[in-house]
């Protein structure tokens, strides 16, 4: 299987006091696989997602995406490669001056030539899978938090991403919806996406059952939490 994401001895220095330090993180993620990292609630923000996207350069070690090291890519190439990644943000992940539907479809409209009607239909279909009535109209600030969180899941699962990053995706969501999310993520993995899931608790950590490796943060270090299950 093609390696999608590789962390090799990655150390990350926090750029703000809200961010946790990471020391010597190493893992490899192939297409159709998932790496779940337990980042317990109350911990500071773990900048692994930013590093995986090449938005934060490691102070030591390297991060490879689709066989290329982020630092070795030109900015235009980095932008293009980020178009193959979808992400659920731990904090507010919306552009306020765009409607929710524009936010949800933005990356697909920008990076692909798919017809808008097809993109919208996929968004509506994914929304229904998460028990939503569709994509609400209006700006994100007018949509209740739990619905907005599910819409982030919709956005992350749209199209054919190479990598899906879920940064504590259950924050602000109903606990009962975890099964819906894990089903959606499993379908994306079966379609070939690699998944990096930063989980808030054990339930999230156990949500995926196949092709998954589990880790937990112990201080700044990444430790294997369980055996690989296939």
């Amino acid at each position, binding site marked *: 299987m093609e390696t999608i994401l590789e962390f090799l001895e990655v150390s990350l220095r926090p750029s703000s006091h809200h961010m946790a330090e990471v020391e010597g993180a190493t893992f490899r993620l192939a297409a159709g696989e998932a790496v779940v990292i337990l980042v317990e609630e109350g911990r500071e923000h773990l900048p692994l997602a*930013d590093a995986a*996207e090449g*938005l934060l350069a490691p102070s030591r070690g390297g991060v490879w995406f689709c066989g290329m090291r982020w630092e070795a890519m030109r*900015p*235009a190439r980095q*932008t*293009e*490669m*980020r*178009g*193959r*990644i*979808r*992400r659920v*943000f731990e*904090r*507010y*992940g*919306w*552009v*306020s*001056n765009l409607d929710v539907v*524009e936010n949800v479809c*933005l*990356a697909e*409209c*920008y*990076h692909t030539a798919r017809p*808008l009607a097809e993109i919208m239909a996929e968004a509506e279909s994914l929304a229904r899978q998460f028990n939503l009535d569709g994509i609400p109209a209006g700006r994100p600030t007018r949509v209740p938090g739990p619905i907005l969180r599910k819409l982030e899941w919709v956005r992350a699962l749209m199209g054919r991403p190479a990598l899906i990053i879920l940064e504590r995706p259950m924050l602000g969501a109903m606990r009962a919806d975890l099964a819906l999310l894990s089903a959606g993520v499993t379908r994306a993995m079966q379609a070939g996406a690699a998944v990096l899931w930063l989980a808030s608790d054990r339930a999230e950590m156990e949500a995926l059952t196949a092709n998954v490796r589990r880790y937990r943060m112990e201080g700044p270090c990444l430790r294997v939490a369980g055996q690989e299950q296939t």
Partner: protein
Amino acid sequence: MSLLGGMGAGALGLFRRLRGLSSVAWAVLRLALSPGSWRRPVRTVLARQIVFTGVEAIPFLSLVAVLAGVAVVVQAQVWMSRLGQSELLGPLLIAVIVREVGPLLVHFIVIGRSGTAMAAEMAGMTARNEVKVLDAQGLDPLAYLVMPRAVTMAICVLCGSALFSVLALGSGYLVGALLGTGPGDPRLFVGSVLDGLVPGDFVSLLAKTLLPGLLIGVISCVEGLSVEGVATDIPQAVSRSVVRSNTAVLVVSVLVSLLMYL
């Protein structure tokens, strides 16, 4: 620090700012000329900005144009007629309205109405971490946020200046005719204005609108994006963008005028 040292530091700071601004403007121009940059969401941003900066500004711009036309054209008609130089009315109006006052006033309107809004919008997005959200989805902020706004500014200032000139000259003629200060026959007035037009006027109009228009777009966005994640910095960013945009417009305008007359 000595006086000389302070002046040197100031000059170096200015040089660095100008170098930064030129490199962003150059990158924006290259992006704008590359067809691959005009993806669907970018075209949507362009269309929305044209509606906001161009179409929605028409009523205010028209009011200013009519008032400026009445003030300038009627006076020009009176004084040219008193001096017995009525045949110079056309060239004088072209020089004052089309070359100088029109583009400058349109720039000031666009900076006040749209440049400030752009700077505040960009600063707000930066403070709310939304630029990172775009970046994380593979949308280059320069290509998605800055480029279409800068292109909009250039297009709207050019079109706005053309509209301003027509409205100012037309309203000036009408009021002059009502007051009996100008040539009664509209064909005489139009003929006099058209005779005063030379190819250089079109070059001047393009140079005084497209380039500074692009620059004020770039300055407004860059000043907004330079906010370091703190909402309280937004007013300062907007204020800086207004001062720097006006300075850029005046400097480019004077330079183009000097080049045209040399």
